[in-house]
């Protein structure tokens, strides 16, 4: 189609000749197809490195905290957490929103960037999608187990029953049920479709290597993919459509999550700015997490040629942009609180910044608004270690953002008589801590057994994939 455009382009364009604008190198050193295949499949085919076992062991151990915490909770009651009137939601929902937010970057990278033809995404989208799915898994733990009677959680789904009673579709929580489950499902499907050709590659490589068993396993899921171009054309179309629907999906999910608060009448929750603010925040934290995960991976597997400085720059810039949006949202909340002339509203925000939870508020401001500003500097962006550290700040900050929104608003609401102060119990802390183990466990399994990058797509963005000999225009 680049074709058609140029045919129609006005003369002036010819002179400007965008073609000669330097194009970022997505796969450096002009690597060949087979080099890419070797590189990525090598990770899976090679023998498991010792460090993997160590990390895996640690991850599983950490994950066991969540399992233990949840078991205790179910056996005893929600009371083992720190909740109480007036703070009936705290870490549970904070963690839920936090993890969901993390997940968003994955979908964003793979879907939105795909739609925007941002080819640089290809190197990171596979692991980003994996991250999404694992984050959703971690997120789902909390809303499910924070309910008082988890064994009745099925009441949340419209299943015909002998009590002929249904769900309340006016409740944002009910919307959440649909949003999150849809999000999880679609992410998995999207991810799987992307994996299809690579699984076929692995199938055949293992067969060649004489490993019938693994060849069979990968083959089973490759569904007999054979690289037929007639398939490719439908495949590409389907992939594009999935990308297309994932984009509104990812936006809607965090919008709906933000409705949980925006629909209520609590000062500090009842805010129309929430949807865009939450989505921006989600992308912000998401990219933070992508950086946190990808940079070590890049170092360990020497993927500098695939995850180039260009990629890191892009991600840093997005972090900077969304971080600034979030900062703007914070400011806006204050302005609206003042402008609304509602004393309850006004107090809530003053209380956030200077009340008993001020410490949380200022951690949030520091990590979310100040930290990303460093990314203005190219030198910072080029210092991967520094970028990695900053990305961790971003993750911390976004967790605190949710904490500030949820807990400080609840702790001091309308009637001073019911004001209180929430502090977490050890069980809560361990349960949350454990989810990082759950996440890492899944992620480690992923990098060990699945191609961490979409080989087919990577090849497609190399010059030699171009049937017209290395240039878009001719």
């Amino acid at each position, binding site marked *: 189609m680049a074709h058609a455009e140029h045919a129609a382009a006005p003369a002036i364009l010819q002179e400007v000749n965008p073609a000669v604008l330097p194009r970022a190198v997505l796969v450096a050193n002009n690597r060949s197809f087979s080099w890419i295949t070797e590189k990525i499949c090598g990770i899976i085919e090679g023998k498991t490195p010792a460090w993997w076992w160590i990390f895996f062991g640690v991850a599983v151990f950490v994950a066991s905290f969540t399992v233990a915490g949840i078991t205790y909770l179910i056996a005893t009651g929600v009371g083992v957490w720190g909740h109480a009137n007036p703070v009936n939601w705290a870490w549970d929902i904070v963690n839920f929103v936090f993890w969901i937010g993390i997940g968003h970057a994955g979908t964003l990278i793979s879907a939105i960037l795909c739609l925007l033809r941002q080819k640089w995404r290809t190197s990171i989208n596979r692991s980003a999608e994996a991250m999404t799915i694992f984050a959703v898994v971690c997120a789902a733990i909390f809303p499910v187990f924070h309910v008082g009677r988890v064994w009745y959680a099925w009441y949340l789904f419209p299943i*015909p*029953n*002998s*009590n*002929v*009673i249904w769900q309340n579709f006016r409740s944002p929580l009910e919307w959440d049920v649909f949003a999150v489950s849809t999000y999880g499902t679609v992410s998995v499907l999207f991810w799987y479709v992307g994996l299809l050709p690579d699984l076929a590659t692995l*199938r*055949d490589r293992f*067969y*060649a290597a004489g490993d*019938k068993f693994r*060849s*069979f396993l990968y*083959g089973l899921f490759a569904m*007999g993919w054979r690289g037929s171009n007639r398939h490719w054309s439908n495949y590409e179309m389907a992939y594009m459509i999935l990308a297309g629907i994932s984009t509104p999906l990812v936006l809607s999910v965090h919008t709906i999550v933000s409705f949980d608060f925006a629909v209520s009448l609590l000062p500090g929750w009842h805010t129309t700015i929430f949807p865009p603010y939450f989505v921006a925040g989600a992308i912000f934290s998401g990219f933070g997490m992508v950086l946190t995960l990808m940079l070590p991976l890049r170092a360990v597997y020497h993927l500098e040629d695939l995850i180039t400085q260009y990629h890191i720059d892009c991600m840093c810039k997005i972090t900077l942009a969304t971080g600034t949006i979030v900062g703007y949202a914070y400011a806006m909340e204050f302005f609206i609180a003042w402008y609304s002339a509602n004393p309850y509203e006004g107090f809530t925000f003053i209380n956030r910044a200077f009340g008993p939870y001020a410490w949380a508020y200022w951690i949030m401001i520091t990590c979310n608004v100040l930290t990303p500003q460093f990314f203005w500097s190219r030198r910072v962006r080029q210092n991967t270690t520094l970028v990695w550290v900053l990305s961790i700040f971003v993750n911390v900050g976004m967790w605190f953002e949710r904490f500030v929104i949820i807990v400080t608003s609840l702790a001091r609401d309308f009637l001073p008589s019911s004001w209180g102060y929430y502090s977490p119990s050890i069980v809560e802390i361990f349960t949350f801590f454990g989810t990082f183990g759950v996440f890492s466990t899944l992620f480690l399994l992923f990098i060990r057994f699945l191609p961490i990058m979409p080989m087919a797509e990577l090849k497609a963005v190399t010059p030699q994939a171009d049937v017209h000999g290395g240039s878009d225009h001719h």
Partner: protein
Amino acid sequence: MSKIFPPSANKLPLQIIIYLGVLVGLATAGVTYYMTPKYTRVGYAPVQPVPFSHAKHVGEVGLDCRYCHSNVDQSAHSNVPTSQTCMNCHNQIKLTSPLLAPVRESYETGKSVPWVWIHQTPDYAFFNHAIHVNRGVSCVECHGKVNEMDTVTHLQPLSMAFCIECHRDPAARLRDPKDVFNLNSQTLAAQGKAEQAAKFVHDWKVKPPQSCSGCHR
């Protein structure tokens, strides 16, 4: 060259899908039948300490329900008769019947006869007999034709669905108030007196609660 999968492998996916479909279908059907009150409650007919036959006492002798269940029209709770009530007659007839031994014993000692409870509602559902029997809902609606039962059997599911069905359309179930304890009577609707039923609903301001508070406290 990858020949791990034989040609036959191509048929498998479809077959698997079909089998799964059938399996899930069966499971759903099974659950909906076996795990709802329609199955768990209906048909419950335990052996009572005394083989009391409603068929004989009501059907043949012609006792009114209220002779034994004397408070059903005043109380939430339809009382089970005291042994004394039994003895009112059985100190004249069947004086020595071994079947009545528990009743006589209870009468002497004052200890209760451990009748087995058949029509139970869950503890969080508060059913009130008085309001129903006083406003045109007959015993039959929930208990069936007890007057024809030798051993009382649980006939209706008595599930929330069952209650709600009637609460949504009372007119269909109402009887002429004087027929309430006549277990052979017909509902007004069944007698083709729909407009009379409608009038009943209107005049008596019949408005069964459909919100939680009606039954749950």
